[in-house]
């Protein structure tokens, strides 16, 4: 365990403090010595653990997992919210009180059990036994959410906050969870903007509707926890979550430099930690990010990188989360994934926040996200980013089991190719489950794409 904890960026004092909790949580999760050894090997192989900032980010994930597993035993009220959450709101739930623990548990399954331990499949299979059956097109992310509970890795919730803006599967799965564990269920939902081409603007009625739902959810949180949850709570959560967001934006900006200073595998660990908004991420994330930022700035200053300087620059949607071997393929075939097409665009970040209340601001921010707006928003957003960063190609993973990400890829491919003249590949993919799509299958599609981009780049220069 010591070697594992060192890979998590812990010092002696923290190791002493956390060791009993780690032992207890790993026993509950069924992680034995062999699993820990395997995780050590995977962390060394796949992640840039030479960087202390990366070790600390990995450590935050693992500690978040331990906190989630032990939350009930440690006397906390438990709230599970859906991924991706309403960010400022999720952070507010996470830091509202030491007596409350809030998280999207599915991401802990994907990143900690999946990417770090390679023990994700049994959790998905657990969900398939009675509820979200195999071969029926259920979202593996939701299988991870339900399976983690059914396997008793995570304790029963006191409240479930379900997000169903553009996905019907999440609320339906949460209804099962709420019924199984006799927990109240709060819904945060909406529908696509009726004016698909007005993005990044959002129709006012949608904001009002989501605000009303957030307010209702806040009242349910107060009822379940007995703790006040008001505008001050949200302001505080929003402000605290903003600290890590600022660092993330700086690190994402450094990822546009050549040679690339940070692998996409590591960028995933950071990006999802920020999106997940757990207490550890909010509290410890800024320090880990500031260390990482300094380390990356040094790399940039010395011209050091993880790929050759002239590697084709690509943008990507939904690289793998649970199976880091698939993400590794992208760089192994020589592609530099500088940009997530889900990153905020200039249009979004420069949008005037006209709304006076923080409730409206977080609702507006949430609904401005292309996945919560419209298919046209996706395409506009992707076009804008691909153009702004002048990428050589785009990987638009087509997620056949995802309500949000299955609709637009072919149309987006056609529009980007036609308008920007850059190649786009839209392979069928599942970033949450490696049972159908393996690294070898992914490689067979991405490698010729990389060859094609290199040839085009040579020609251009």
């Amino acid at each position: 365990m010591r070697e594992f904890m060192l890979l998590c960026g812990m010092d002696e004092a923290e190791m002493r403090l956390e060791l009993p909790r780690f032992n207890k949580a790993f026993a509950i999760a069924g992680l034995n010595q062999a699993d820990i050894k395997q995780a050590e090997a995977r962390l060394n192989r796949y992640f840039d653990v030479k960087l202390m900032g990366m070790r600390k980010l990995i450590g935050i994930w693992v500690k978040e997992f331990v906190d989630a597993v032990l939350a009930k035993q440690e006397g906390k009220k438990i709230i599970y919210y859906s991924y991706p959450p309403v960010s400022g709101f999720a952070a507010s739930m996470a830091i509202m009180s030491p007596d409350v623990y809030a998280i999207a548990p599915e991401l802990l399954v994907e990143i900690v059990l999946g990417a770090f331990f390679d023990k994700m499949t049994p959790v998905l299979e657990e969900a398939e036994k009675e509820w979200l059956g195999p071969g029926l097109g259920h979202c593996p992310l939701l299988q991870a959410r339900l399976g983690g509970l059914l396997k008793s890795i995570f304790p029963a919730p006191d409240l479930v906050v379900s997000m169903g803006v553009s996905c019907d599967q999440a609320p339906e799965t949460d209804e099962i969870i709420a019924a199984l564990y006799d927990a109240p269920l709060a819904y945060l939902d909406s529908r696509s903007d009726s004016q698909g081409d007005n993005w990044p603007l959002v129709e006012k009625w949608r904001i009002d509707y989501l605000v009303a739902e957030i307010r209702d959810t806040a009242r349910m949180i107060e009822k379940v926890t007995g703790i006040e949850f008001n505008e001050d709570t949200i302001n505080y959560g929003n402000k605290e979550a903003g600290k890590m967001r600022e660092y993330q934006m700086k690190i994402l900006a450094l990822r546009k430099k050549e040679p690339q200073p940070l692998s996409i595998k590591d960028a995933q660990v950071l990006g999802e930690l920020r999106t997940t908004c757990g207490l550890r991420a909010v509290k410890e994330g800024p320090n880990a990010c500031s260390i990482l930022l300094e380390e990356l700035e040094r790399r940039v200053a010395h011209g050091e990188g993880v790929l050759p300087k002239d590697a084709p620059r690509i943008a990507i949607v939904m690289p793998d989360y649970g199976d880091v071997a698939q993400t590794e393929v992208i760089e192994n075939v020589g592609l530099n994934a500088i940009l997530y097409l889900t990153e905020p665009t200039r249009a979004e970040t420069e949008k005037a926040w006209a709304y006076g209340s923080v409730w409206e601001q977080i609702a507006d921010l949430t609904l401005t996200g292309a996945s919560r707006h419209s298919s046209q928003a996706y395409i506009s957003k992707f076009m804008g980013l691909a153009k702004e960063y002048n990428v050589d190609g785009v990987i638009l993973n087509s997620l056949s089991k995802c309500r949000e990400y299955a609709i637009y890829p072919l149309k987006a491919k056609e529009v980007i190719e036609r308008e920007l003249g850059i190649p786009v590949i839209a392979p069928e993919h599942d970033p949450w489950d490696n049972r159908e799509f393996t690294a070898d299958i992914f490689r067979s599609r991405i490698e010729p794409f990389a060859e094609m981009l290199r040839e085009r780049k040579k020609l251009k220069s």
Partner: protein
Amino acid sequence: MKEGIFAGVDVGAGTAKAVILSNDKILAYAVTPTGFDAAAAALRVTRRALRRAGLKLSEVKYAVSTGYGREIVPFSNRTVTEITCHARGASFLFPECRTVIDIGCQDSKAIRLDERGRVMQFVMNDKCAAGTGRFIEVIAHTLRLKIEEIGPVALTSQSPCAISSTCTVFAESEVVSLRGRGRKREDLIAGVLQALAKRVSIQANSVRPAPVVVFTGGVAKNIGMKQALEKELGFKLSLPEEPQVVGALGAALFAQDESRKE
């Protein structure tokens, strides 16, 4: 000017192919089943092709390997993906080629080329075998037909059956069930080719095919498949003399390029 001898080896899921090239001339080629040991198959097929040209492996100046087994070819100097090799090979045989449709044992691809034979765009079938040669092989086995009989038998059909193209295993059950209901063998196999042609044509249309369209891969040797595909696409396909070795030819051409760079 004598440049030397160059080898291109395409180690596919079903067959390994080799082409021996010198001064832009194909000296010989060979095809052999890949079997379990892909490295041995690569060696076997290359030696066979070399023997046909009266040459030895030691005389090969540069070799490029492609296909699924490209990484384990022991004598290969460089690997190139099969997409790039098929484009290059087809463009060499048909200089006006702008689109390649390749159906191999394990996958199918549609490739758009520029005027110099470089890949501009491509699509491949996803995780399923239903758009591939293996689909035909499985059904042919069920119908007790030899591979070479499939095309001619299909052409005799008057009323092709409607067969699902989404899954090889389900399609096989469907064929068994239809056979049990007395449907003729030629109608069943013609239906299978039609289903495959529909699936591949959707793929091909997504790269906006421009003439000349060259049909490559082992399945291109099936006359029934060529006809079904032409019907679906609404235009004629150009067929190389030996469509199965186009990828290996492309690999051999890349090998020759390497020599010219020196």
